[in-house]
């Protein structure tokens, strides 16, 4: 692993042998994964397997116990909080819970990263925020508070907030979970458009089989703290691994061990 490929072929993101435990619970054991520039990579796996944990490492929200994480030729797992700011400008994350700040209106929510990361003035940031909300058809709700909106609206606003900084990589943590099929497919299309038109790399954590098999370029299946299978949609569909098959066919019984059940 130490002899790195030439820069041109080097993936944007590399996880190398990452391990992470919380207390005595070993979540990631030896996870290695490459993400190529401009692709839509799906991370799939059962609930609690460590998908959210995996992507949070990339932006320094969690620290590794062992292993290395590289972004665009730079090692990120050793950076300290202030040094992570430039990385967090380039990698956006849409959190699983939408996570808009309850005490701010949608416009203020979207304006916050503009003010903090780009040093924009409040007034200018708010104007800009409205423009971004318009892109996700949410401008009429700019002055509402998150608690007043539906889940789907919150999710869209959270995506708008993440996209304000025009990140090169966007991490989506279950962007379609809890959405109706129409809104879910709209989010799928948005993710696809991002990577097609603007060359944005997307890493999507999802259980949503429809989105997985309609927009993924590659799929990584995480099982017992490591990547168990990695490949294109067709490769994963044709996988002869019974654990992978059980997951993608959604069977309740099979060889897969699911902690907690």
């Amino acid at each position, binding site marked *: 692993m130490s002899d790195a490929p030439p820069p041109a072929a080097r993936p944007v993101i590399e996880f190398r042998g990452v391990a992470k435990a*919380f207390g005595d619970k070993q979540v990631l054991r030896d996870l290695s994964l490459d993400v190529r520039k401009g692709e839509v990579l799906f991370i799939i796996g059962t609930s609690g397997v460590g998908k959210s944990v995996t992507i*949070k490492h990339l*932006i320094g*929200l969690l620290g590794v116990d062992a292993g290395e994480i590289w972004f665009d030729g730079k090692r990120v797992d050793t950076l300290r*909080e202030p040094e992570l*700011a430039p990385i*967090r*400008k380039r990698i*956006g*994350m849409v*959190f*699983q*819970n939408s*996570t*808009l*700040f*309850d*005490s701010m209106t949608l416009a203020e929510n979207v304006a*916050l*990263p503009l003010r*903090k*990361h780009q040093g924009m003035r409040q007034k200018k940031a708010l104007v800009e925020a409205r423009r971004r909300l318009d892109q996700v058809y949410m401008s009429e709700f700019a002055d509402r508070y998150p608690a007043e909106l539906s889940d789907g609206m919150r999710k869209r606003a959270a995506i708008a*907030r993440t996209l304000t900084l025009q990140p090169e990589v966007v991490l989506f943590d279950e962007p379609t979970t809890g959405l109706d099929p129409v809104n879910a497919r709209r989010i799928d299309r948005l993710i696809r458009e991002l990577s097609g038109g603007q060359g944005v790399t997307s890493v999507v954590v999802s259980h949503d089989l429809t989105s997985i098999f309609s927009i993924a370029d590659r799929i990584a299946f995480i099982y017992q703290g490591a990547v168990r299978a990695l490949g294109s949609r067709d490769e994963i569909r044709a996988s002869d691994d019974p654990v992978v098959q059980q997951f993608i066919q959604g069977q309740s019984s099979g060889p897969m061990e699911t902690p907690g059940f």
Partner: protein
Amino acid sequence: MRGLIELWGVFVSTIAGMIRGGRPKGEIVRQMHAIGNKSMLFIAVTLGFIGMVMIYQACMQFNRVTGDLSQVGVQFIRLVTSDFAPTLTGMMLATRVGAGIAAEIGSMKVTEQVDALRMSGVLPVDYLIVPRFIASVVMTVVLTTLGGAIMYVAGGLTAHYQFGVNLKIFFDLSLLNPAHLSLGLVKAVTYGAAIPVVSGFCGLRAKGSSEGVGWATTAAVIGSSLAVLLLDFILSVAGFFVLGEALR
């Protein structure tokens, strides 16, 4: 032990955050309002009643022994300013304000809002703890003053109506000196600082789901109350050494 070091880290970054600035506008006022509103009546009633009970008991005892009640008010105000007012207020804020802070910050933690703040380029301590810290220090001093005054007046009225103590003699402030006032003030400021730091720390450590928030809230109440008691002890001993004779 590691927890204590992290707690100290939160305190240090709170102080650093105060100097750095960059907290949301209007947040301090909002927090002061929340703390004051939540606790003003509660503290006034509790300290008022405790003042009445204390004076009642003290006068009964004095009546049995010497029958001279002229010193009760003079001693009472010294105790109220140097200890009762700040410590009782602190204990009460530890439960109410501590629980509130831990629950709020804890639920932001488990719903990933704290992570989202970090992603937006904000230090969570700056946004979440610093405003509560400043508001809490100010409001603890204010509420201590208010609570102490009510306690003193309630005690005085009890002494007057139940035991016939002359109001002029009870409310004699001549033996109250700056040492008592400054010890009381130092205590109020210290508790006001400790409660949001301990509770915010507990909130930031919440994990899992709502269960984790409940756990953090309980830990915050216990932790802040213990902090108040411990600091009361330390400051009283320190005050005795530093101020010595003046407190007698």
